C-alpha cells in the first residue's frame, strides 16, 4: 500500500475532536520547543520544555494511549523536569550560559551528533509513515488483549523483560556512579563537628567565641534591620547584616545618598549634572 493511500485512510479516520486537539496541542508543543531554545533565562527554558512535554502527554491520551500519556506527565514533567528545575534554582536565577568552550572540539562533535540524531529521527518517522500499518489502540480488544494498560504490562514483562531490566540496570549504574563521584566524605573535606568547632572557638582560633549579636528589638520596631545597642548606647556594628538588606540597599544607595545630600555634586566639567557613573 502506498504512502499516499495510507495518509488518505488516516485522514478520513481523524475525528473532529482529535483534529481540534491536534491543532491546539501541536502548535503549543512546537512553541514550547522553540521557546526552550530561545528563552534567555534557564528557568524559562525549562518551563517551555514542560509545556512541550505536557502537550505531548495530552496528545498521547488523545491517541488512545492514556497510560503512556500519564506516565509521560508523571515521569518526565513531574520528576525529571523537576530535578532540572531544582538544579537550575540552586545554580542561581541570573546565571547565563558560558560561551567558553570547556572541552576541545565540543561544538564540532555536538553539531555532528546533532545532525546524526536528526537524520535518525527523520528516518524513523518517515518509515512510520510509509511501512508501518497503524492498527489503532481504541477499544478493549485492540491488539488482541484486554485493553491498553494490560497489553503494555504484558509486553513489558514477557517479550521485553530483558531490555527493560537492562535499562533499569543502566539507570542504577548511572545513579550510583553519580553518587560515588559526587559524594565527598566530611572528614576528607576537613569539616569539623559541632563539638570540635566549639572547642576551636574557645581556644581562640576564631575571631570571637560567640555568634554575632542579634538585631535590636525595641518598642518602636521589631525589624531585623534594627541595629542592637551596646551598653553605652552606641550602635553595635556587628549586629547589622549586610546580607539581609543587601538587595534593597545596593539598589537604593544612590537615592539615599541624594536625600542625605552626600552624593557628589555635578562635575564642573560635565555637560549634564547628576548621575555618577558606576
Amino acid at each position, binding site marked *: 500500500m502506498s504512502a499516499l493511500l495510507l495518509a488518505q485512510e488516516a485522514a478520513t479516520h481523524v475525528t473532529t475532536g482529535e483534529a481540534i486537539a491536534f491543532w491546539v496541542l501541536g502548535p503549543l508543543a512546537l512553541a514550547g520547543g522553540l521557546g526552550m531554545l530561545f528563552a534567555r533565562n534557564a*528557568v524559562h527554558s525549562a*518551563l517551555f520544555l514542560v509545556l512541550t512535554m505536557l502537550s505531548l502527554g495530552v496528545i498521547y491520551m488523545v491517541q488512545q494511549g492514556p497510560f503512556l500519556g500519564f506516565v509521560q*506527565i508523571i515521569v518526565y514533567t*513531574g520528576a525529571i523536569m*523537576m530535578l532540572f528545575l531544582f538544579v537550575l*534554582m540552586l545554580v542561581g536565577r541570573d546565571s547565563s550560559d558560558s560561551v567558553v568552550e570547556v572541552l576541545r572540539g565540543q561544538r564540532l562533535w555536538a553539531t555532528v551528533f546533532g545532525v546524526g540524531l536528526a537524520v535518525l529521527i527523520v528516518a524513523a518517522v518517515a518509515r512510520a509513515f510509509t511501512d508501518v500499518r497503524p492498527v489503532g489502540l481504541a477499544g478493549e480488544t485492540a491488539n488482541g488483549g484486554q*485493553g491498553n494498560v494490560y497489553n503494555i504490562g504484558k509486553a513489558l514483562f514477557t517479550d521485553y523483560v530483558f531490555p527493560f531490566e537492562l535499562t533499569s540496570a543502566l539507570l542504577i549504574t548511572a545513579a550510583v556512579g553519580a553518587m560515588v563521584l559526587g559524594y565527598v566524605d566530611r572528614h576528607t573535606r576537613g569539616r569539623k563537628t559541632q563539638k570540635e568547632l566549639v572547642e576551636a572557638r574557645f581556644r*581562640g582560633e576564631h575571631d570571637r567565641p560567640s555568634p554575632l549579636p542579634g538585631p535590636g528589638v525595641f518598642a518602636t520596631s521589631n525589624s531585623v534591620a534594627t541595629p542592637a545597642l551596646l551598653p553605652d548606647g552606641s550602635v553595635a556594628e556587628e549586629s547589622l547584616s549586610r546580607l539581609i538588606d543587601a538587595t534593597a540597599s545596593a*539598589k537604593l544607595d544612590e537615592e539615599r545618598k541624594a536625600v542625605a545630600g552626600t552624593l557628589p555634586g555635578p562635575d564642573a566639567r560635565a555637560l549634564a549634572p547628576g548621575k555618577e557613573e558606576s
Partner: protein
Amino acid sequence: MTRAQLLADDPIWLILIKAVVLLLLGAVATMAMIILERKIVARMQHRPGPNRVGPNGWFQSIADAIKLPFKEQIIPDTADRKVYFLAPIMSTIPAFLAFSVIPFGPEVSIFGERTVLQLVDLPVGVLVVLACSSMGVYGIVLAGWSSGSPYPLLGGLRSAAQVISYEIAMGLSIVAVILYSGSLSTGDIVDKQASGWYFYLLIPSFVIYFISMIGETNRAPFDLPEAESELVGGFHTEYSSMKFALFFLAEYVNMVIVSAFCTTLFFGGYMAPWPISLIDENYFNTGWWPLLWFFGKTWIFLFVFIWLRGTLPRMRYDQFMRLGWKVLVPANLVWIVLVVALRAIRNESEISTSTFLIVGGIALLVLIGVVFLLPERAPAPDGPVVPVTGGGYPVPPLDLKVPDKADLKPRVRRRREKAAVGAGADVQKEAGQ
C-alpha cells in the same frame, strides 16, 4: 452496564453539572476545613479560637474568603513577574483536576438520566491523581524561585525534594492495591473491595500511604516548605492577596484529594461500613446513600490531618528525608515482593487456605525467632562524663579548676595580631571613613 459505559452516555449538560459541583466542592470543603481546623486546634490548645463572626465564630471563613481577594497586592521588586503570576495558577488547577476521577457513588438517576457519581472513569484513574500531584509541585517550586528572595527559594527547594521523595513512597504503596484489584481504574478498585477493604488486607501499604500523603501535602508534622519558625512563610512569603488565597486553596483541596483517594483505595470508597452494610441486603449502599459514607470517611481523614497538626512537633529536614528514603521506600519494596510472591503461590498451585495459613504462621515464628537471636546493638559509649559531686544534679565538681586565662590570652592575641597584619590596610581604611 459498566461504569465506563454509563459515564460515556452522559449528555453534555450532566457533565457540566458534575464539573461545576466538583469545582464548588473544592472551594466549600476548603472553607469548611479552615474554620474546622481553627476550631479544633483551638479546642486542643484550650483556647476559644475564632469567635467573632456569626454564631460562635462559625462564619469566620466566609469573612476571610471575602476579605482576602480585596487586600493589597504586593509584588516584590526582584520577582520574575511572569512566573510569579503563573505559580499560584499552576498549583491550583491540578488540585481541582484530580477530583474528576474520584468515584463518589454508584449508579444513580439525575433528572431521569442513569449515571455514576463520578466525572470520568479512566482505565488509568490512579495515575491521574499522581500526575496531578506531581504537577502541583511546580506551583510551589516556581513560587519559591520567582519571588526572588532567599526564604521562599529555600522553601521551594525543600518542597521539590520532599514531594518527589514522598511521591515515590506513595506510588509504591499504591502498587499493592493495584496488584490486589487488578486494575488502575478507581471505580474498579472500589468495586473489588466489596469482599474486604484493603486497609486491613494491606496494612503496610495503608500505613505508608497515610504517612506519605501527609508528606505530599506539606502538612504538619512535615510542613517543612513553609516552616514558620525557620523560613517565615516558606514558598509563599512574598505572596499576598488573591495569589496567596490560591495557594491556600490548593493546599486544602490537595488535602481533600489525598483523603478522598485514601478512602477510595483503602476504605472501600463509597461502600457502607460493616454493621450498616448488613441491613436489608445492603440497602444503604444504593442510590444517594453512599455519598454519606464517602464524605464521612473522607472527613475522618481530614480530622486526622488537623489532629496531627495540633499534636506533633515539626520534624527536622534530614530526619524527614531519612524516614522517606531509608524506611518507607525499602519497607514498601519488601512488602511488594511479599505480596507478589503470595499471589503467585496462590494463583499457581493448589494450596488450601489452612495449609497456607499454617505455613505462613511457621514462617512468621521463624522470623521472630531469628530477630530474637540477633545480637543487640551495644549502646554508644558516652563521651567524658560530667563529674557530679552528689545529689544527682550536675553541679560543678569541688576541685573545679578554672582555665588559666594568662595561659590562653597570649595565644589569642598573637592570632588576632597576625590577622590584623594581613588585613591591616583595609581595617585602617574603614576606620578612617
